[in-house]
C-alpha cells in the first residue's frame, strides 16, 4: 500500500505481528537531569486486535505511543535504544519523508484533548480534508466531499451543514468524533487512541467507545488503547499491557489479568476498585506514590510500594518472566502473587 513497504524483504518476512515495539528506550534530557520515561517496552499488535496499555501518569504509556507515531519532541526527548517494526521494517531507521507516508496511512492516532489537538482557526472539514490533499493529492472540492462522508461515518448529525464549522462550535463528544474521522481518513492499519474518552462524560464515553469498536470491526484495524480506566479496558481489550515506571510490568490476555493478576501492581489496582460488597469498609490502597522519573528506585521500580518486597527486589531488576504462553510478569515473586490472587 505504501511504496516503502514493498522494498525487498520488508513485507511479512519476519512472520511477526503487524506492529512490534521491541525493547524501546526513551529518555528526556532536562535541566533537572535525565528522565527515563520508557525503559525497555516490548509489545505487539495485530490486525483486528485491541491492545490496552494501562498505566498512571508518568508510566510512559503516552511517550511510547508518540515514539511509534514519530511525533516525539526531540530534543528534549531521545530514543536511546530499541526498534519499532511495522510490517517488519524498523520505523526508527526510516527517513522522515517515508515515515510521513506511514503516519496517517499506516498508523494514526486519536488524542485525548480534541480541543487542543484541533486547529482553532480552520473549519473542521478543512482539517479532515487536509489528509486527502496532503497524502492523496486530492483537489479541494474532492477532499471536502470525502470529509463530509467521513463526518457521516463517525455520525456527526447534519455533516453537510457542519463541515465549515470551527472546532469551538462542537461539543466535546463531537470534537472527539472529528478527531476520529481524521485518524481513520486514510484507512490506517493501526489506530492509537491515547485516552480518547478521559475528558468526556460517561454517556458520551459509551458512544465514542462504541464508535471505535464498530470502525475497528469494519476495517479490521489494530487498536492500541491507552488508558488508566480499568472499566474501559475490561470492556474492549483483547490483551493488556500494564505499565509502571516506564516498563511493562505485566502483559496478559484480558480475562486472565482480571481473573488472576500476576504482578503486585496490577493486583493492587484491581483491589482498589470500590466494590458493592465491600461498601463501608476501608478501600484497599496501594501505599506510597508513583516513582519520580528523575530518581527511579533501584531494582524493581515498584519495590517501595510493594507488599511482596524482599531484599533482592531492591537490587535486581526483575525480567519479564513468562507466566504461561502469552503472559508475562516482571516480578521476582510472580508465583506467590498469582497464587494469592487465585485464592
Amino acid at each position: 500500500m505504501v511504496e516503502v513497504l514493498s522494498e525487498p524483504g520488508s513485507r511479512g518476512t519476519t512472520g511477526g505481528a503487524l506492529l512490534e515495539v521491541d525493547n524501546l528506550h526513551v529518555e528526556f534530557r532536562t535541566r533537572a537531569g535525565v528522565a527515563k520515561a520508557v525503559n525497555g517496552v516490548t509489545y505487539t499488535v495485530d490486525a483486528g486486535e485491541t491492545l490496552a496499555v494501562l498505566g498512571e501518569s508518568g508510566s510512559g504509556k503516552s511517550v511510547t505511543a508518540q515514539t511509534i507515531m514519530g511525533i516525539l519532541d526531540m530534543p528534549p526527548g531521545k530514543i536511546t535504544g530499541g526498534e519499532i517494526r511495522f510490517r517488519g521494517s524498523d520505523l526508527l531507521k526510516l527517513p522522515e519523508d517515508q515515515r510521513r507516508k506511514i503516519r496517517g496511512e499506516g498508523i494514526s492516532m486519536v488524542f485525548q484533548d480534541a480541543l487542543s489537538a484541533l486547529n482553532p482557526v480552520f473549519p473542521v472539514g478543512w482539517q479532515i480534508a487536509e489528509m486527502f490533499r496532503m497524502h492523496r493529492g486530492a483537489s479541494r472540492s474532492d477532499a471536502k466531499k470525502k470529509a463530509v462522508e467521513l463526518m457521516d461515518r463517525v455520525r456527526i448529525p447534519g455533516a453537510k451543514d457542519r463541515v465549515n464549522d470551527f472546532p469551538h462550535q462542537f461539543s466535546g463528544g463531537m470534537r472527539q468524533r472529528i478527531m476520529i474521522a481524521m485518524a481513520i481518513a486514510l484507512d490506517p492499519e493501526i489506530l492509537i487512541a491515547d485516552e480518547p474518552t478521559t475528558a468526556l462524560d460517561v454517556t458520551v464515553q459509551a458512544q465514542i467507545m462504541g464508535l471505535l469498536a464498530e470502525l475497528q470491526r469494519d476495517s479490521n484495524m489494530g487498536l492500541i488503547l491507552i488508558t488508566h480506566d480499568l472499566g474501559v479496558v475490561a470492556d474492549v481489550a483483547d490483551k493488556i499491557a500494564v505499565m509502571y515506571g516506564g516498563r511493562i510490568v505485566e502483559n496478559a490476555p484480558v480475562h486472565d489479568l482480571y481473573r488472576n493478576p500476576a504482578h503486585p501492581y496490577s493486583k493492587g489496582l484491581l483491589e482498589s476498585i470500590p466494590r458493592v460488597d465491600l461498601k463501608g469498609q476501608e478501600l484497599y490502597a496501594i501505599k506510597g506514590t508513583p516513582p519520580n522519573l528523575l530518581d527511579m528506585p533501584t531494582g524493581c521500580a515498584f519495590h517501595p510500594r510493594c507488599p511482596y518486597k524482599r531484599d533482592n527486589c531492591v537490587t535486581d531488576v526483575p525480567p519479564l518472566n513468562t507466566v504461561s504462553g502469552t503472559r508475562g510478569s516482571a516480578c521476582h515473586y510472580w508465583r506467590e502473587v498469582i497464587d494469592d490472587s487465585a485464592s
Partner: protein
Amino acid sequence: MTAPAEPILEVRDLVKHFPLTQGIVVKRQVGAIKAVDGVSLDLHRGETLGVVGESGCGKSTLAKLLMALEQPTSGSVRIKGKDITKTRGAELKRMRRNIQMVMQDPYTSLNPRMTVGDIVGEPFEIHKDVVPKGGRRRKVQELLDVVGLNPDHINRYPHQFSGGQRQRIGIARGLALQPEIIICDEPVSALDVSIQAQVMNLLERLQSEFNLAYIFIAHDLSVVRHISDRVAVMYLGKIVELGRDADIYERPTHPYTQALLSAVPVPNPEGREQRERIILQGDPPSPANPPSGCRFRTRCWKAQDICAEQVPLLQIREGSSHPSACHFAEVNDAVGTH
C-alpha cells in the same frame, strides 16, 4: 442510617440563572443559563450525600451556592435553621466556618507562593478568634498529622508534594475551622488511580472521627456509591432522582439514571458480550435553552406527548420507595449491576 430529626443543611427550591447579555455599552439581557433550577435537598449530621451528573448539569454551581460564593436567583440554603443566602457581613463570616470546601484540582487550588503552613493556617488569619496567634503553628502541624502528612514539612511549598499529598493539604485546609459540613467537589478525579483509594479512605476516616457531613460531588459513579449514604442524580440543573445508594444503583426508576449506570464500564471482562447497554443519543441540551416539560425528553426513549407539556415533579411514584422526576418512572431490569 436513620435520619435524625433536624437536618444540618436544608436546601429549598434553589435557583441560579446566569444572565446572558448582549451589547457592549448598553447591556441587554437576552436570556439566562439555567444552571441550577429548583433544587431541594436535606443533609444530616455525619451523612454523605453524593451528587452525580454530567458536566454542565449544575453540580459545581450548586456547590458554590451552598458555600454562599454565589447569590442564588431565588430559594434558600439553611444551615442549622439559618438562611445563609440572606446573611451578610460578620454573621455570614461566622456561618462560613461551619461549611468548608475541598476543590477538585490540587494543582491550581493551592497558591504556589505560599508554604503549606501558610495555606493550612490561612483560615485562622481570617477567623482570628478560633486559635490564638501563638498556638497556630502547632495547630497547623496537628492538622497535617491528621491528614497523614509529615508535620515537619510545614515550611515546604506545594510543588514539593505529589498530587495525592496536595489533595491532603487541601483537605487539611478544609478541616482547619472544624466545620460540620464539607463540600467535596470532585476530590479524587484529578488523582492517579492508585492514589484515589488513599484519599477516599482518608475522607471516610475523617468523617467518622469528626462526625462530618459531606456533599460529595463526582462523576465517577463507583466512587460515589462507595462513600455515599444517599445519592442525588442531576440533569440540566434539576435533581431527577434521589434516594439511598441501593435505591439509586439497584432500583433506579428514572431513565437518565438507568442510562448513566449502564454507560459506566464495568471493571470485569466476564460476560461483556452479553451486557445490555442503553446508549443515549446526542449530547445534553444547552442549559440556556432547556427543552420544555421534562428536560431529558430529547434523549429519552420513553418520551411521549405529556413529557413535552408537563414538568415531572420529583416525588415518590407507584412501585418505588424513593423520589423520581419521571412521568413513566419504573424499575428496569436491564440495569442495576453496579
